[in-house]
């Protein structure tokens, strides 16, 4: 995976950091030339994965990078934590699933907002969510 230029890291440990992460995502997406609608979609996806960190792991980080592939660019969003991990990822991606008094819509919702979405998680090892939103050519 080739990434260029943009390299932003936001530490996530409280709900105020969720707001910071989406503001950072918004300005990065805007600078890359995403449409106003896509900027909002990106900020919303970041909000969901950042909240997932706060709710389940307590702390973690969000990385924003610009990705280049086959002549196109995209915003790469990585949300990672060293929390308890997700015991059953497949189950967690089903809308309505929840273990923490939330709507249980966060992760499946985020997946619907981006072009690529991947979760790596193992018990006791933490969770890494990798998402890409490609810039329309």
């Amino acid at each position, binding site marked *: 995976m080739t990434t260029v230029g943009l390299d932003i890291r936001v530490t996530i440990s409280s709900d105020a950091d969720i707001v910071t992460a989406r503001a950072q995502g918004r300005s990065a997406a805007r600078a890359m030339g995403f449409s106003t609608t896509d900027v909002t*979609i990106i*900020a919303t996806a970041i909000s969901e994965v950042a909240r997932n960190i706060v709710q389940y792991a307590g702390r973690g980080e969000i990385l924003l990078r610009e990705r280049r592939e086959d002549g196109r660019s995209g915003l790469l969003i990585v949300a990672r934590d060293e929390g308890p991990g997700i015991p059953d990822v497949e189950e967690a991606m089903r809308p309505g699933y929840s273990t923490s008094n939330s709507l249980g*819509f966060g992760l499946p919702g985020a997946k619907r907002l981006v072009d690529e979405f991947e979760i790596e998680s193992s018990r006791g090892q933490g969770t890494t969510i990798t998402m890409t939103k490609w810039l329309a050519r």
Partner: protein
Amino acid sequence: MRVPILKQENYLIASIQSTLTDEELVEFRDDITRQVGRHRARGIVVDVTVLDVIDSFAVRTLRSIGELTRLRGAHTVIVGIQPEVAIAMVQLGLGFEGAHTALDLEEGIALLDELTGK
């Protein structure tokens, strides 16, 4: 940041002034639910024009304002959802089912007049 809640006859008008954290949004929900009783309000307008992101948590909290205030005898109308926010909400797969919505404050008050038979 506290959300100012104004009383206008039998209605409460709450205009969110800036981005809110999850905690502030929950405080606002509790505050407005309490104020329904204090002011004997029949209708509530929540203006979300300034919100540039309405994610699953915000949807759930705003929706619950509608449910809680209904139990307290008042109707709630959410107004000012920005077009790009609406698109993101639909793509997210979430809407305000069960809650009333209107374009802006004026339309929101007109809808409350209808709902309360004023």
